[in-house]
């Protein structure tokens, strides 16, 4: 099997993990102000502006560029179907997939209206449908039932899953018939991805930004309340459960490696997970896209509220837990190795537990400090 050691994730920990100075642990400085009269002085508007202008719109812009980079590599592969060009195509796909992790959580407004997340990243993909559409040449990618046959997971299958080696894959993708089957289908999938994401970006640029930022109040329908719900929902369902818990079998009782994000690539599930975890923590801290600069954020909001938990700074507790989760996950092998070679996959389960520990910190402690109520429920799916 081909292994593509893509980009090694060099995420330097910015929040110098000031490991709990164990000294204080015994003596509780019980001057806990409690839920007293800490009047809310934090302005939500600037936080929304920081999110929109320094994080969300730059991330969508970057994503759009990565997709056009991916298109260019596909064109290059079409012109010359070599193994080198397949590798270049795959790298461009991975870069775009990582860029996707930077916008996945923003399923609000234009992205929510088009259902961007499930249109671009429903996995596992249905390879039977993909094969049938590719060979048939007629399909409607806008159909909801075809979400499992397009987006990044479909490209994963077509770029990584058609054979055991790059030689075989190039032979399949570079053949004359492939021009009207696999390659034509890749073109269609990529076109669909670009149309949807460009639409979302242009709506952010042309009005939704102001709608979002100006809805600065504190109510169930205000931007902060709604987006904090979306953020935690994303973390809980798509990051924690989707990228880790479901393939690990936490919910079903059976490990499901085929449900890993980027399954056919073998190596990238953990890379994508860590990217997504970093994005989640960076968002919490208001860190600008592709920059070390920081703006108003949920962390700053907690500071303004003086939020503490068990005598400790809640912001620090949350950041420490993100760091712990990252360390544990980083220490693992690839997710496929962990799940397929260990029964039970104990180390990955332990790492999962650390990832899980962030959920109540956000979903209970943080939101109660901010007086935001959690409005989502996991539906039974009946």
């Amino acid at each position, binding site marked *: 099997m081909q292994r593509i050691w893509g980009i090694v994730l060099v995420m330097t920990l910015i929040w110098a993990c000031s490991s709990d100075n164990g000294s204080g642990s015994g003596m509780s400085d019980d001057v806990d102000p409690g839920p007293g009269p800490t009047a809310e002085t934090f302005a939500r508007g600037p936080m929304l502006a920081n999110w929109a202008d320094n994080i969300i719109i730059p991330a969508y812009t970057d994503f759009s560029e990565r997709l056009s980079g991916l298109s260019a590599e596909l064109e290059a592969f079409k012109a010359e179907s070599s193994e080198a060009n397949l590798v270049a195509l795959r790298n461009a796909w991975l870069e775009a997939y990582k860029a996707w992790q930077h916008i996945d959580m923003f399923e609000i*407004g234009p992205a*929510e209206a088009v259902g961007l997340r499930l249109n671009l990243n429903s996995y596992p993909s249905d390879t039977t449908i993909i094969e049938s559409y590719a060979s048939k040449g007629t399909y409607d990618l806008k*159909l*909801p039932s075809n979400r499992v046959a397009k987006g990044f997971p479909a490209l994963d299958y077509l770029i990584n899953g058609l054979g055991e080696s790059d030689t075989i894959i190039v032979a399949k993708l570079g053949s004359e018939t492939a021009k009207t089957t696999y390659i034509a289908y890749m073109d269609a999938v990529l076109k669909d991805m670009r149309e949807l994401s460009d639409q979302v970006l242009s709506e952010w640029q042309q009005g939704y930004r102001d709608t979002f930022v100006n809805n600065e109040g504190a109510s169930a*329908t205000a931007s902060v309340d709604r987006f904090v719900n979306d953020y935690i929902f994303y973390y809980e369902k798509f990051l924690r459960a989707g990228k880790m818990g479901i393939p690990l079998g936490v919910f079903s009782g059976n490990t499901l490696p085929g449900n890993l994000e980027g399954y056919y690539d073998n190596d990238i599930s953990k890379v994508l997970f860590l990217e997504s975890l970093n994005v989640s923590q960076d968002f919490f801290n208001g860190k600008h896209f592709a920059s070390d600069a920081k703006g108003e954020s949920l962390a700053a909001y907690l500071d303004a509220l003086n939020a503490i938990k068990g005598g400790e700074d809640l912001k620090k507790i949350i950041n420490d837990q993100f760091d712990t989760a990252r360390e544990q996950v980083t220490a693992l092998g690839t997710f496929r190795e962990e799940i397929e070679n260990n029964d039970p996959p104990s180390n990955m389960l332990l790492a999962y537990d650390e990832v899980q520990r962030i959920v109540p910190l956000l979903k209970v402690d943080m939101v109660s400090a901010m007086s935001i109520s959690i409005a989502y429920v996991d539906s039974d*799916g009946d």
Partner: protein
Amino acid sequence: MRKIAFALTIVAGVVFTSCSSDDNDIVEQAATPTCSDGIQNGDETGVDCGGTCTPCKSGGENTIENPTTYAFDRDGTTTVDFSGQTTRLKMGGEFVSALSDNMRTAEQLQAMFAHEAGNADFTDVDLNASDKSIKSKTAASADFFGGNATDQAAIRADFDGWITGQVEEVFVNWETTAAPGVAGQMPHGEQVRYINAKGLEYNQMINKGLIGALALDQIVNNYLSPAVLDEGDNRTTNDADTMEEGKSYTAMEHMWDEAYGYLFGLNTDAANPLAGENDGDRFLGSYIGQVAEDPDFSDLLTASYDAFKLGRAAIVAKDYAVRDEQAKIIKAKLALVPSVRGVFYLQAGKNALAEAVPNYGEAFHALSEAYGFIYSLQFAQDSTTGKAYFTKAEVDALLAQLLADGENGLWDVTPETLDRISESIATKFGFTVAQAAPEAI
């Protein structure tokens, strides 16, 4: 411990309609417990005895102990059998699943609905061999339809029409994206729903409609009806412990068990459903637990179960007043399943439509379920009158309102309409909309 039973013909067609309802229920539906209401309440230590009432006589006539589980035997042999109900619930499960298989023809689906012995309609060979069918017990209770063949035919025609609609409107548009006035696919989270031109999912209407037309109707309007329990010489044979031919139970015991089977027949622990889990029941047994998760109706499951046990014990004790009181409790409790759940889904639909980006998939799915539950309301019996809380005509009127805000049905429905229907139902059944839909903000 299920026995392979052979057909126990419960006379569907036999019609003792207005069988001069036993007037031994002079007992008030009073809030205050009395020593003669046939229920163990107040400080009583048995039914109508102990505490401030006369002391309970051990083994005496007014002491009926409620057994801990629904297990009854005679000389070491169980007397409980509801395999016919289990069979129909399983048929219903396969039927409902098949409604989402667009390769099926209308004829195949109709054949599953109205199965005939020996036909290979199901994957389960035991179901194929059975002479039972869903349709024969749809709107087929003695109390409500014994003398009302007109409504029975109309109700069966409703189901037939929905089956046909699923094939001729929805299946043919399987690869179409739904829009107002256009049947087809609708995304609902990660799932895909298939709706008709007005936004309704026929499969949900059929599934939730059968909760009333099959399960609830058979339980409350048929097997728990005094007219059925006391049919023919059932009292005489029960008093004399005369078993059914070749069976270990009396006719009356069996009637009660058949009612029980429609509620708990597919539970992993049918004798103690509180300990077991629903095992494939798509109907009443599935939803009673869901409604009981609402704190406002938390006793729904336990109270129904307790009343079933005590009523059955009363039949063994030949105390028919206690039996009928338990039947009334069950009727009142089970009526809450379609009514509470109907309001819950109406409000869920309203909330989904009110989102910043209206969630049509979520809303239409909820409202299609609501449609079926509201349809089921015509089978809920008000035990104080012996009549339906809502007649068929009234239910049809409520459902018409749901689709009347514009030419495209659910695509046009307004929150005012959803609230108005919710209020009508909640008021009729004696709860509030907020109690039924606590998550509805």
